[in-house]
């Protein structure tokens, strides 16, 4: 088995078998459950019918997935460094690239688990609503580069900063900035600055694609522009992580 595969398996074990990883997954599941229960109890949301509900849930899954990816990415470098686990790994007979790829694989596995966890929630709230299957697909298609990008971003932060706390704070602020157009509402998104930011914001790309496919019933194939923004995001963050990891010495 290659070093990359060994390390990716180890990272997956860290998420699925360690108390810390299981606690993260449980927290994500509780957040999804809270939102789902909110939907059940809210009697006014039906105005816009099931499409809105599936759209909202897809957005929540992407947001929570990005947060989980960020935490997993930061922990993979900065967390291991602080626990004293990183140096023995760096001193093993595996190239830096192999170790990095293994850790990136760990982030990918984390998202795969998270996405698998989210499917029952999408099914449960989707009910008889429109475009549930397409909604699940587009959530996977756009959500994957967004979430992985935040994971790689977290790894890069873990490499470049001195502590995991600094990396986490910086990462969460970046995540909030990316999500800010959604929090501020459509009016501010339509301003000149808002539109410019929207054009390059991967989060906006994902959410706009969900809107187009789930609510407006557009095809997934028509979301090329949004997919391009998401692809650019994952490439940039991969470069960021790679350049940082090459400089890690301890």
């Amino acid at each position, binding site marked *: *088995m290659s*070093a990359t595969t*060994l*390390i990716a398996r*180890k990272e997956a*074990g*860290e998420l699925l*078998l*360690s*108390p*810390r*990883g299981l606690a993260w997954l449980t927290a994500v599941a509780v957040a999804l459950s809270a939102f789902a229960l909110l939907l059940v109890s809210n009697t006014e949301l039906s105005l816009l019918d099931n499409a809105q509900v599936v759209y909202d849930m897809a957005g929540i899954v992407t947001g929570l997935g990005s947060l989980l990816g960020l935490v997993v990415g930061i922990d993979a470098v900065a967390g*291991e460094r602080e*626990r*004293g*686990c*990183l*140096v*023995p790994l*760096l*001193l*093993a*007979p*595996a*190239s830096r690239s192999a170790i990095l790829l293994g850790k990136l694989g760990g982030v990918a596995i984390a998202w795969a688990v998270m996405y698998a966890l989210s499917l029952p929630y999408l099914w449960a709230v989707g009910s008889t609503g429109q475009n549930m299957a397409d909604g699940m697909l587009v959530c996977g298609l756009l959500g994957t580069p967004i979430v992985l990008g935040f994971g790689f971003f977290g790894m890069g932060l873990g490499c470049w900063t001195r502590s995991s706390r600094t990396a986490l704070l910086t990462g969460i602020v970046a995540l909030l900035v990316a999500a800010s157009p959604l929090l501020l509402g459509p009016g501010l998104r339509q301003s000149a600055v808002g539109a410019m930011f929207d054009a390059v914001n991967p989060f906006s790309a994902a959410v706009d694609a969900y809107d187009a496919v789930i609510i407006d019933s557009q095809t997934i194939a028509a979301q090329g522009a949004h997919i391009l923004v998401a692809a650019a995001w994952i490439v940039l963050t991969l470069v960021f992580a790679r350049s940082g990891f090459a400089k890690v*010495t*301890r």
Partner: protein
Amino acid sequence: MLLEIERLRLSIGGTQILGDVRLGLEAGEIYGLLGPNGAGKSTTIAAALGLRRPDGGTVTVLGQTAGANEPALRRRLGVLPERNGFYDWMTAESYLAFYASLYGRSLARPQIAARLAQVGLAPRRGQSIGTFSQGMRQRLGLARALIGNPDLLILDEPTNGLDPRGRREIHDILTGLAQNGAGILLCTHLLDDVDRLCQRIGIIVDGRTVAEGPIAELIRKSGRRARFRLRLAGPRPNERPAESLVSIVARQDDWCVVDLDPAARPDTVWRELAFRGWPIAEIRRDGGGLEDLYLTLTEGSAA
């Protein structure tokens, strides 16, 4: 030479950490690397391991420049860093199996069990590392360092957290490895360990090597004689024949203070005295040994 460092210079963030470090480790040898806190021992080790690039000087590891052909070189290295972290959710067995695979060795369960038994962890092999004590973690770290049957071992405080019996067990392991041809660089503050294990030492102060070579030779060069207090269980025999072995400095009741020649090995001298009829009941060091040498050479350094 398994490890050779000459005129090593290294700066971190614009601050010079190492100014002139030298070190030479042969196969089958245990070399003690000493120095006060902040002297540059860990940085020297990092340079030897290729984790830090030097500004000047040479670092040759197993015949290759440090940093060249890294994975192949690291396959022959075993390292126990000072900060020794583990994946607490793994068992000792699965942890060792993971690292064995990384080192390209597919070890079956009985072989893993044997490795753990070597460091005294056989009964704990199925336990998660999160439940391990400090001493158990140290033992597991040593097992990990040995997983690739390394030619060169670099150990930073290997007996940290171990009780006296555990320390002795580790000493026996290291002695056995050296006898089998491995070279061991031992970085430690425990001078007793150095005294017991090491043939040669290097002392680093403020980023520079201030002494390097065999312990006895360094003590002799320092001009200090090793002084001991001997408690005798009976009357002393004729002292004249003992003059070739020891210089009697003082006598009081049943205690006798003697100086040894720095080149002489104390255990050889005690054996010889006992053979000549000295009823030695107790031996205590009274200065002039490695500790005195270390304290003299490191006096005034920032700790």
